[in-house]
């Protein structure tokens, strides 16, 4: 009982496309935090696939901060009937280790990637961007920089940081000054009343696209105790449950702000991805589904390629 193949789909997700100054290898990406640094899962096999990286346009790497972070206490994940809450707390190796260990390895393995960074002020974003540019400028597989302006799990600043259009603009500007020949993206929080305003601000300050959306603030209660399950009470809600919410946010941005959007949120199948493309997204990212199945994004890319070929012939 699959819906009929959408006749309107005439784009090859495996075809490189221009995003700002950069030609990106494809339109199906993995989302930050759900596929680590793109160095995990290379050895995995599945019937018909060379690896989970087959056909990926980019891996958006786990957000790194200026210094390494140990993240939040356990439990960090709560499954819900149609999604999950996470409270990883931005555990990451830090910018230096990322530049030193991760980037060269991605380059060596030929993994197309977009680096994701978070900081607590515009200046820091600028410094991180400069550091990446200095070392990464020569890398063939480094395609873009995503500014994570929205992680709801970080105590210092994270929460309200990305909700203010002025701050968003300032962070973008600082990064854009440093990174001019790679695609620059701002990842927006959906936990605001007017996400289009954030997109307008980011666009005015020079991003090539916004990534929408990051997780929604959610909470789950432990019935045995009556207390929230996650140690920080709140977590980021992701997975199929948020698909209609993410689609609404993307539509708002596309129609009100006219800014290119990379769609994220609840994508688990090719059909889910198509819904974002139908609204005008230029690419999509697969998050939670990639955790369940490392071949999710590769499967989506292949299936959309097949639909594309079918429609081209037909």
């Amino acid at each position, binding site marked *: 009982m699959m819906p009929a193949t959408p006749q309107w789909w005439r784009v090859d997700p495996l075809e490189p496309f221009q995003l700002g100054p950069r030609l990106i290898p494809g339109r199906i990406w993995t989302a930050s*935090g*759900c*596929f*680590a640094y793109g*160095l*995990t*899962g*290379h*050895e*995995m*096999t*599945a*019937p018909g696939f060379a690896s989970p990286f087959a056909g990926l346009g980019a891996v958006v790497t*786990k957000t790194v901060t200026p210094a390494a972070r*140990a*993240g939040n*206490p*356990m*439990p*960090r*994940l709560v*499954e*819900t009937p*149609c*999604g*999950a809450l*996470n409270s*990883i707390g931005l*555990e990451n190796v830090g910018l230096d280790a990322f530049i030193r260990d991760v980037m060269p390895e991605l380059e060596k393995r030929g993994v197309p990637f977009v680096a994701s960074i978070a900081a607590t002020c515009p200046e820091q974003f600028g410094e991180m961007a400069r550091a990446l540019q200095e070392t990464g400028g020569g890398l063939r597989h480094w395609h873009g920089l995503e500014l994570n302006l929205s992680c709801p799990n970080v105590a210092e600043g994270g929460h309200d940081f990305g909700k203010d259009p002025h701050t968003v603009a300032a962070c973008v500007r600082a990064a854009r000054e440093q990174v001019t020949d790679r695609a620059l993206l701002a990842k927006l929080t959906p936990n605001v009343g007017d996400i289009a305003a954030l997109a307008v601000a980011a666009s005015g300050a020079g991003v090539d696209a916004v990534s929408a959306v990051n997780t929604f603030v959610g909470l789950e209660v432990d019935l045995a105790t009556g207390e929230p399950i996650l140690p920080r009470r709140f977590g980021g809600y992701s*997975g*199929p449950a948020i698909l209609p919410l993410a689609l609404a946010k993307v539509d708002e941005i596309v129609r009100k702000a006219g800014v290119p959007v990379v769609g994220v949120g609840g994508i*688990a*199948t090719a059909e889910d991805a198509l819904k974002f493309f139908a609204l005008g997204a230029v690419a999509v990212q697969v998050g*939670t589904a*990639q*955790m*369940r*199945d*490392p*071949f999710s994004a590769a499967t989506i890319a292949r299936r959309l390629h097949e639909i594309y070929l079918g429609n081209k012939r037909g």
Partner: protein
Amino acid sequence: MAAPGLPRPCRCEGVVTGNEPLGPGLLRLSVRLPLEPGFVPGQFAMLNLPAGRAWTFGRPLSILDWLAGEVSFLYRVVGRGTGELAGLKPGAAVTFLGPLGTPFPLDLGGRKAVLVAGGVGLPPLFAWRKQRPQDVAAAYFGARDQEDAPWPLLDSGWRVGLEDLGPSARGGARQGLVTDLLEEDFPADGTRDDCTVLACGPWPMLEAVHRQARRRGWPCWLSLEEHMGCGYGACKGCVVPVADGPDAWRPATCCQDGPVFDAAHLAWPQLERT
């Protein structure tokens, strides 16, 4: 990355060939798979249901056995996932991602293995014993009571300790904890210093076994349990604190760096706090 020498994990759909109860809420699941990379004892798989009925995250289950295209698991029904697994009939489809994780060492450098299993912590040690029977000094299995023990898996090689023995002493089971049995067989007097403990089971058991190993100067490998998202190192949802120099620690992943850890590498102060 899977450490070198480990089988390449595969993601595939399998068909349930058996799902028999071995006790109340205790089942053995067998699944036929199209690929067979093999496994090392201590490795696990993420099981899920096919699209449409899938849980957000797979459920980690240790691999019990893998023979002639059929992989098997021993599991206890505790919640939604294992409850739905228990409802599967032969012919049902499941998705499989595995083998995953860092296993128990197979080569103990000449030392003899003392295997300690608690409840559904049995599979890794069952598999270890099957692969290296000659290297086993002793094998203990502990459970709450008779109904808690998967008897068909426990041949006479296992010394069984039950907290509540009940009326009949099945399979030579003894009243008591596995640690009591170990204490009995291996007095902490230095007479037996050539062993290595491999253990998997509930946390209090692991803590106790670890203390016994230290007292005897034995290396000790523990298989830990944490809630998991991806099972393959992608999400950092399953961290275990490991020592990082004196007094410092860093998060390691239970799914990739573990589930089996050298007890000497764990950050015990942090572990005991949780």
